């Protein structure tokens, strides 16, 4: 079973956002970058599937700058076999990135392409379904349970108030949601081995963006902070404010 996992390097979720002087990008000073948390589930699932199958290869792939090598090494340390860096700047919307990934995936033999459901920087939730469409592959997004056997796949995905069961034959695309598995940590041995695993670099040229950034800004701070009172006796005052000031009741 050959699996490709697409991963992204993103700012850590605990960052406090500061806007750069251009008014369009994140001020990256002092920011810690990590493997996109949802992509950890994708890597874990790939490793588990390879282990169950007892054969095959897990390739991790990213479109990004040289700095993204560190992210690839993290996944190699978790247990992936090899990595591919597509050197380029991810697009503002998902499509430009998806086009480059699809092109690179098309050239390789694989049974399954795994993604995280969403990158926690742009929160686009676009790339997996786009890659699937571009490659003409079936796809399940926001997947919380996955079963693969005999070249067939069944995925359970979250929808509002229910689940959807998606079935298809491999090859196909799956995007992982939290809950799919518990990602493993890299062992010390894994970290040592990762240094020797192959990391291929590919120049992919310009990545097209169909959207352009006009402005990045912080949302208005909520003023907040009105304590209407203490204990249950404050309830009538609260309700009066909810009705008359906030008009939400």
């Amino acid at each position: 079973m050959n699996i490709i996992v697409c991963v992204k390097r993103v700012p850590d979720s605990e960052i406090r956002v500061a806007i750069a002087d251009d008014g369009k990008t994140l001020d990256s000073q002092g920011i810690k970058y990590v493997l996109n948390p949802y992509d950890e589930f994708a890597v874990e699932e790939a490793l588990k599937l390879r282990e169950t199958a007892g054969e095959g290869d897990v390739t991790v792939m990213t479109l990004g700058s040289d700095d993204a090598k560190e992210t690839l090494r993290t996944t190699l340390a978790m247990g992936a076999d090899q990595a591919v860096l597509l050197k380029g700047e991810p697009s503002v919307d998902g499509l430009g990135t998806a086009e480059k990934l699809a092109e690179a995936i098309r050239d390789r033999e694989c049974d399954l392409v795994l993604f995280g459901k969403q990158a926690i920087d742009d929160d686009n939730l676009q790339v997996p379904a786009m890659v699937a469409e571009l490659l003409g592959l079936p796809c399940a997004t926001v997947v919380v349970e996955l079963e693969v056997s005999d070249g067939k796949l069944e995925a359970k995905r979250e929808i509002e108030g229910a689940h959807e069961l998606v079935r298809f034959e491999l090859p196909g695309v799956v995007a992982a949601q939290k809950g799919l598995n518990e990602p493993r940590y890299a062992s010390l041995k894994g970290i040592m081995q990762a240094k020797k695993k192959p990391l291929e670099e590919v120049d992919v040229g310009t990545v097209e963006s169909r959207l352009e950034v006009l402005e990045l800004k912080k949302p208005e701070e909520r003023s907040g902070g009105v304590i209407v009172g203490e204990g249950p006796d404050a309830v009538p005052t609260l309700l009066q404010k909810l009705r008359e000031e906030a008009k939400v009741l």
Partner: protein
Amino acid sequence: MSVLVIAEQRNGALREAALEAMTAGRELADALDGECTAVLLGGPGIEDEAEALGRHGADNVLVASDDALAGYAPESYTEVLGRLIEERGPKAVVFAASALGKDLAPRVAARIGAGLASDVTELGSQDGGLYAVRPVYAGKALLRVGFKDSPALASIRPRAYSAQENPRDGQVEKVDVELDPERKRSEVRVEEGEKKGRPDVAEAEAIVSGGRGMQGPENWNLLEDLAEALGPKTGLGASRAVVDAGWRPHSEQVGQTGKVVSPPLYIAIGISGAIQHLAGMRTARCIVAINKDPEAPIFKVADYGIVGDAFEIVPRLSEEIKKLRSEG
């Protein structure tokens, strides 16, 4: 046609998110001085839902009905919409950023090679171009993007627009459904969860959300009572601490690694207000906090707070709301 709205249905009934998308689409069409057309994909009989779309601002309603479109069929939906968009050439296509919309919109964008802005809270036109505003970094920043080409695709975050009636003709036009069997690559079946009777947090009009301060799953009846008092469109939410402890399902988690919600009313009970929780609910219109610790960070974002024991305050709150409701 200037704006095309994809009107989502489940089990043959329009979803609230469809009417919200309709409202966003109507506003955009007005700004462009153009027409707003809705598309309904569904099984036979789905045209009955066209009336509600007309009432919410659709000049025309394109109806594609076929057994193969009754439930969500990703490849077929993509095929029908891709073809319609190419034929009709709208300037903008509006989806709901629901579970279905988030799966479908990227496929359609890839199919026709168009730019997509996801989970949009504001869609408009300025200086002859279209723009969208969308939260990024889990809501810690807002990104304003411009579309370089037409059509501009956008999915609208649930509750970012509230459905407005704005009656138009809603002229029904049936469109032919021709599906290439080669394209169908997956089978999708809905597995209904146990009927909770409460809307999903992402779509709820009000959310009663509980944290570790509730001390155990057995105390959730207090929150259910409050939700009951507030009405059927009220959902139940939870902090991650509660979900990690197994007290509540992950589908209720609000925050960075849960759902991002923007309801008119969010009531946080026994939730401290960690940054990752705030990321998921800070765009609620009105936030109420109940916490026994006056220093809890949740009070810094709450519009109204009560300091005290949730076990005393919540029952009183439910009772008073019920009283209010019965007085009308």
